[in-house]
């Protein structure tokens, strides 16, 4: 037999069918499985769906010639497809059952279908359009990213201005403005706010506000007797102050600094525009290129590739 192995066509070999008889084990497992299936309590939704499916299946199944009534009718010449009576337009099939499940008014269902269809059509169109708009979106994202970057750079530039200003004071150099206005050089913190150039005035103002708030908080905490320079009435004694609750009042800024239309105007600009202005200010006032991070000797800024960041790439 071993020699004939080569001749056997394994691909076309016919196997005897496995014995149909299920083993005791298989039988037990099948019964268990069926029992589980039967025992499982169906959910409400499952039940409803099943009931509806059974109903629709039942409604779709025509009574046929196996029905006993059919045979009785056949005796009088009735054939499949015939109608009853003598009328020409007699019914062929029973009236369909339509079960109304909600309180929707007449026409609502077809309206819903129409809306759904419209919605689908709209969604399709939207999908087409969004492909077109994709380019715009990318632009917008890029702009946003650039604006964020410009914001960071702008604050950096403001701090640079301050640093250069302090340096210039130490070195006894006067700024152009100071000279022109005949002011003696002073720290930015001590000059009136409005005399600080608008490009970095925001920084100083912000710091002043912060300091003042802190001071007021501190004063409040320190003691009730602490006198607020701007608000105390000399004639009031401490009891009066306590009674009037004056200490609770918080002044954010000196009244004269409240209004600053110049700063407001400047702040309304985008960060990239503000950055551009401050960069120019640095170049003009301090001969400093923000992008080279270098203070040049004179106004020509010899060696700097240009005024924009791209120039420095």
């Amino acid at each position: 037999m071993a020699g004939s192995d080569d001749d056997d066509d394994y691909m076309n070999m016919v196997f005897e069918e496995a014995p149909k008889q299920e083993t005791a084990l298989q039988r037990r497992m099948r019964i268990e499985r069926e029992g589980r299936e039967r025992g499982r309590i169906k959910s409400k939704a499952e039940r409803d769906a099943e009931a509806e499916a059974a109903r629709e299946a039942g409604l779709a199944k025509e009574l046929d010639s196996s029905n006993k009534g059919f045979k009785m009718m056949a005796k009088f010449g009735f054939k499949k497809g015939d109608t009853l009576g003598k009328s020409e337009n007699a019914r062929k099939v029973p009236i369909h059952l339509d079960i109304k499940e909600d309180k929707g008014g007449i026409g609502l269902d077809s309206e819903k279908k129409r809306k759904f269809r419209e919605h689908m059509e709209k969604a399709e169109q939207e999908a087409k359009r969004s492909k077109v708009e994709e380019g715009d979106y990318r632009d917008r994202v890029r702009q946003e990213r650039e604006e964020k970057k410009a914001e960071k750079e702008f604050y950096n530039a403001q701090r640079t201005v301050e640093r250069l200003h302090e340096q210039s004071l130490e070195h006894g150099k006067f700024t152009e403005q100071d000279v022109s206005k005949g002011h003696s050089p002073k720290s930015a913190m001590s000059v009136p706010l409005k005399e600080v150039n608008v490009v970095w005035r925001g920084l100083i103002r912000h710091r002043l506000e912060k300091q003042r708030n802190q001071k007021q908080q501190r004063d409040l905490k320190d003691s009730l007797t602490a006198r607020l320079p701007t608000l105390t009435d000399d004639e009031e004694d401490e009891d009066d102050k306590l009674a009037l609750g004056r200490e609770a009042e918080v002044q954010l800024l000196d009244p004269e600094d409240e209004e600053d239309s110049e700063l407001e105007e400047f702040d309304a600009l985008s960060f990239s525009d503000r950055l551009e202005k401050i960069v120019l200010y640095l170049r003009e006032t301090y001969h400093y290129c923000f992008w080279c991070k270098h203070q040049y000797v004179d106004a020509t800024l010899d060696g700097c590739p240009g005024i924009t960041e791209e120039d420095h790439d």
Partner: protein
Amino acid sequence: MATRREHEDDENPRAKRVKMESNGHTDNPYLAHWNDEPKSDRPSNSGDLLYKFKRHGTTSKQAHDAEDGPLNPFTGKALSQKYMGILKTRRDLPVHKQRHEFLELYQKSQILVFVGETGSGKTTQIPQFVCFDDLPHLNNKMVACTQPRRVAAMSVAQRVAEEMDVSLGEEVGYSIRFEDRTSPSTMLKYMTDGMLLREAMHDNNLTRYSTIILDEAHERTLATDILMALLKEVVQRRKDLKLIIMSATLDATKFQKYFHDAPLLAVPGRTHPVEIFYTPAPERDYVEAALRTVLQIHATEGEGDILLFLTGEEEIEDACRKIRIEASDLMQEGAAGPLEVYPLYGTLPPAQQQKIFSSAPAPLKQGGRPGRKCIISTNIAETSLTIDGIVYVVDPGFSKQKVYNPRIRVESLLVSPISKASAQQRAGRAGRTRPGKCFRLYTEAAFKKELIEQTYPEILRSNLASTVLELKKLGIDDLVHFDLMDPPAPETLMRALEELNYLACLDDEGDLTPLGKLASEFPLDPALAVMLISSPEFYCSNEMLSLTALLSVPQIFVRPAKDRKRADEMKDLFAHPDGDHLTMLNVYHAFKSEAAQDNPKQWTHDHFLSYRALQQADNVRLQLKRIMEREEIELMSTPFENKKYYENIRRALVAGFFMQVAKRDGNGKSYITVKDDQSVLLHPSNVLGQDSEWVVYNEFVLTNKNYIRTVTSVKPEWLLDIAPNYYDLDTFKKGEIKNALQRTLNKVIRKEADKGKR
């Protein structure tokens, strides 16, 4: 012109025609009053007053004079003052103007189609017109006028008896299922169409009648449709029988065509134009939209009552409650006058139904905003009831309609869109007293596209088992070619024949069996009749008689919305763990006990039961008992102490309802109906203990769920034993039910074998 002076209420054109017709006749009817002058000569005994009348040759003039009295032309008694008062209003009715034309056509033709809109007076007047010309009392015949509803038959008979100045049940009577108020002297009989059909079963040619009037034929009830087909044949055999088909809708050409182009007479109703409004978009919730519309009308429209159509009791009661609250708010804000809200539906007690006729409330103060009433009704206010004062109609476009599908054998009431004809009828209700408005809560496009032209006649929406049995009894064998106006789908007939065959009422050839003949004697569903007839085999015919009566009347349990819990507690007092049928029987027995009969009204009220329904059941039981005695069906009971008392009743139930059985699906809540394989739930009202594998049910109800209602637990052995033909396992398809029945069968065979060995 001398005659005109004497009869001022005669209309000129008709008077002329009468004159022309009677020219040359010696007995000129115009001069009849001269001939009749010597009144003292008249014999005073009944009937003879019309002795001179030539049958089918009288004129309206003659009748007119006879009606004027002073003696009642039918009884010979002096006419009352009340009669004279009614006579005056009767002569104002639209039909009265055409009395002459009617008589002409009636005399000329065997069949006549008469169209008169609601309020024309056709139901009360036409039968009287006929009596004066047909003279049924002189020929030992009767005039029959059928009505689709029992209540209508009763109330119209009452009214006509008054109009004719006779006592109800004498010359004018009525006959409805389980109640007959007629006597040998009855000549005009109002009856339900179903009753006339039953009479035809014993008297195939309806020989007792000389004229048959089928009223409200436009409603196309099952019985009216069958009667039309039947009478179409009878008039061929009986040339002396006259037939009048009366309809309230103008589309009567269908009737004309069906009756071989019978002449048609139309009487206009008293209607005013009705302006119709549609909504701009479909409504999300028609009930809510309806309430909003009613309140808006109340707050902004001029005087006039409102009629709102909704679908059923629960919906109507709920709407009444909500409108009352909102309307009283409106009134307190001064935005509207007082509003009285009345519900109207079939199961409402008559006293409460009567309330809809009370007049609208007066304004809060003189000159204040007018009060009005709002009636919220099912479609019974569509044609059958006439309510004056309605100016505004709100129509959401739905009604509850019976549907039957032979494929899954379900007969149920479903909320369905109405037809265009129905919508027109509803709108017409607004124009009864003056020009009105109808607010349709759907778009004009939906009206045109979504509504069918005519409501499907009942014959297309009914189980025909009962009808087929009646027709077989009537001797109509070839049901396939029976000339119905709208033949149902063949499958409907097929199913009906099959059911009757399983009930052994028809043999395999489709011929009536002795059991079928007997069953047809009972005005019951074949299953109930068979159950009753076979009940002596189970030694409980007394009990089955009570149960059959209980199943033939409206719901005996009352469950008011505000007192559900108490009502359920009371029901539990009667509950039998084996099922609702047994529970109903317990109720009936308790109702008949001395304790309850002392003051049955109070007792039923205390126990949340319907006194009306139980009383009606009592009456039905008596009628059925008479039939059983007549047919010599033995009345017996198993002693109550016997432990088989309830089991016998349950077995007897199977004898009739073996085709309405369901088996529990696994261990779950749902059941599967036998053979139709429909997944159903027990109706929440059931009192059954949880472990009932098999149940018989009285009804398969479709709502948003499939329910079986009124269920009782049975044993599968009984099914195999009592209905072996239906439970022939070879006819079952593979599945859980077949397996279960097979197991039962094996068990039974084993038991039998064991018995044999012993």
